[in-house]
């Protein structure tokens, strides 16, 4: 095997057999049933399990001893352009995670020793031309392989034992469309599902299913005008450049044999249609299936059901953020899904609306959303010109961002980050640019602004996931951008933007422990167990589309915070 440690340009997997110290490593393959069962020692898929709880049933670390938590080991992925944003996965004592440029690592979960690494050769000339690049948000595991997407439009399968490439499938013409893959894939039922970046990029936002065994594409669903019904909701040629996409992983519902996915916003972000958006503006109509949650038959990719959370989204408050939290209440099987606009939607398992509640205070893009039907009430549709009084709330970063919340079956509470901020705009007519390479299509100049009569802040809420009733809240001067973890030890962990990781009592919100990781968080956090010992793993490293707003708007520590650095930090009891 060619050994490769320094040069980025060669795609090489380095396996270090001697470090396979985790005795149970590779003891069993990861398959659909195992992910469904979500064994307590592992973290087998982005959202923890198909139920998307981001919860660990481990309780060795708990409210009584969390004060003794300390750093067990660290790992530096290197070349961390725009920070470290991935969600680590763990199977049988081996931790898998990614850094920027889809640099992929398998590490001994107890010691951090390298098992193997894989640095794909990317189209570096393309990466230099991309805006939303080159961060990566994680891998999927299944059938003895590790799956990772790339910003130049490929999905790659690696042998989980060695890191050797099993297959490498090009799915998107990123050289022309500019977008690729930054989100983690989802493994289910012999397929690897991954959605493209999109939103403000003129394209049609595909979601792909690839055969895990062969790397062959099985189906593709276009989130922009992907059915005859949807085509009728895009006036003129606007469907050709409608945006869409599905850049964060959804989940799989085995009971209905359905892939559940949240879709991105349409382009341009801000339409100048005014109230006549059905017939005027950049993209007349409801613009299906953007800013929607969709259910696709996993075997065929055919649409089974959907709910468009924001018909004709004119504010960039899409549905691709967040998790599909599955739970039961009063005999009903429900799904809880956050929308970027700051609302939480509650659905049945066929995505019929059961309730809608507000996580965020500062919302004025609509007056409200009907909790029974999901219909928007009092929407603000802007003509070309300035939007300043009042500013649009929330800010383009959303009332909710893509960082995951956590649901604890033990407390029955949903722990979720809310963001209170607004923006001024000058909406302008734009024309999508598609050649020689697609360019962003925003549709406005904009700037962050404080909420009317208040200040910008973020908050962790502990709420009933179905009713939205709040039990407690913790506030932060700047919105945290990292994901949240709850555990059976009655703990909630929040890695914040300043670099502090906090542990709270899950019942009361009392802070019990914190630790300074030295740089801002905007990635994942998980818990797992190796050899009977519980670990907490979190990625640190700031930078990117939202984090880059922090230095000019908040100053302070963010002015000197690196945006090309980061690490994986793993904690255990001392």
């Amino acid at each position: 095997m060619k050994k490769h440690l320094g040069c980025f340009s060669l795609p090489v997997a380095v396996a270090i057999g001697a470090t396979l110290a985790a005795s149970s490593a590779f003891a069993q393959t990861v398959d659909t049933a195992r992910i469904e069962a979500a064994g307590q020692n592992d973290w087998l898929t982005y959202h923890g399990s198909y139920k998307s709880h981001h919860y660990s049933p481990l309780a060795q670390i708990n409210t009584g001893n969390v004060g003794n938590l300390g750093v067990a080991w660290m790992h530096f992925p290197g070349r961390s352009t725009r920070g470290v944003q991935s969600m680590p996965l763990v199977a049988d004592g081996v931790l898998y995670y990614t850094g920027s440029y889809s640099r992929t690592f398998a590490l001994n979960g107890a010691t951090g020793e390298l098992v193997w690494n894989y640095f794909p050769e990317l189209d570096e000339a393309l990466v230099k031309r991309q805006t939303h690049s080159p961060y990566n948000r994680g891998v999927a595991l299944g059938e003895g392989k590790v799956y990772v997407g790339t910003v130049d439009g490929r999905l790659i399968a690696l042998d989980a034992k060695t890191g050797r490439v099993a297959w490498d499938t090009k799915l998107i013409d990123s050289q022309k469309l500019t977008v690729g893959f930054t989100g983690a894939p989802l493994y289910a039922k012999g397929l690897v599902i991954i959605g493209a970046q999109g939103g403000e990029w003129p394209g049609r936002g595909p979601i792909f299913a690839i055969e895990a065994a062969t790397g062959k594409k099985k189906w593709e669903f276009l989130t922009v005008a992907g059915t005859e019904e949807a085509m009728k909701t895009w006036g003129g040629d606007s469907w050709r450049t409608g945006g869409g996409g599905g850049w964060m992983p959804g989940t799989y519902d085995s009971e209905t044999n359905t892939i559940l996915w949240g879709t991105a916003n349409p382009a341009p972000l801000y339409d100048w249609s005014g109230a006549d958006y059905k017939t005027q503006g950049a993209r007349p109509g409801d613009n299906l299936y953007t800013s929607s949650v969709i259910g696709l038959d996993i075997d065929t990719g055919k649409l089974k059901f959907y709910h468009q959370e924001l018909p004709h989204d004119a504010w960039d408050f899409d549905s691709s953020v967040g998790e599909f939290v599955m739970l039961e209440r009063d005999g009903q099987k429900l799904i809880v899904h956050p929308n970027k606009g700051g609302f939480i939607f509650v659905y049945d398992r066929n995505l019929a609306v059961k309730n809608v509640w507000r996580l965020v205070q500062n919302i004025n893009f609509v007056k409200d959303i009907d909790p029974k039907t999901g219909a928007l009430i009092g929407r603000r549709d802007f003509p070309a010109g300035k939007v300043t009084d009042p500013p649009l709330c929330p800010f383009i970063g959303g009332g909710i961002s893509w960082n995951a919340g956590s649901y604890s079956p033990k407390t029955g509470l949903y722990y979720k980050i809310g963001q209170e901020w607004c923006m001024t705009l000058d909406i302008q007519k734009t024309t999508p640019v598609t050649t020689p390479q697609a360019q962003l299509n925003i549709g406005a100049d904009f700037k962050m602004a404080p909420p009317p009569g208040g200040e910008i802040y973020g908050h962790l809420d502990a709420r009933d996931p179905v009713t939205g009733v709040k039990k407690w809240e913790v506030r932060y001067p700047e919105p945290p951008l990292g994901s949240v973890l709850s555990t059976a030890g009655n703990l909630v962990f929040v890695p914040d933007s300043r670099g502090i990781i906090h542990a709270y009592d899950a019942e009361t919100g009392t802070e019990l422990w914190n630790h300074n990781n030295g740089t801002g968080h905007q990635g994942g956090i998980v818990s797992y167990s190796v050899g009977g010992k519980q670990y907490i793993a979190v990625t640190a490293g700031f930078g990117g589309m939202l984090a880059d707003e922090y230095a000019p708007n908040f100053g302070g520590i963010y002015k000197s915070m690196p945006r090309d650095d980061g690490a994986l930090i793993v904690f255990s009891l001392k």
Partner: protein
Amino acid sequence: MKLQSKKIALLSAMLGASLAYAGPVQAQSATPAPDNGTLDVVQLFAGTCGFCHSSGGRAAGRGPQLMNSPRDDDFLRDRIKNGKEGAMPGFGEAFTDAQIEQMIKYIRALKPREG
């Protein structure tokens, strides 16, 4: 105050001709970037550059404020063409030299918004 760029930003024949409607309602069409034509830089900022350079380049956002930039034209030209890893994409293959010069003129003419 009108921006100088508004004067130079004549909507090119390409941009105007692109508004071909395939349906009964108005909608924007897929449009190639102009090869040699002039560029509406105001629109370009609202579509692309302003995602990072807030308020049309008048305020810092994800990218720096461009109004009153202390950088010289050579620096701006190089940065627009080649970008900066992890901070700004390069646009040298998307726009012609003449169009990039128009962007620099726009930046130099930036003034605070009225009202």
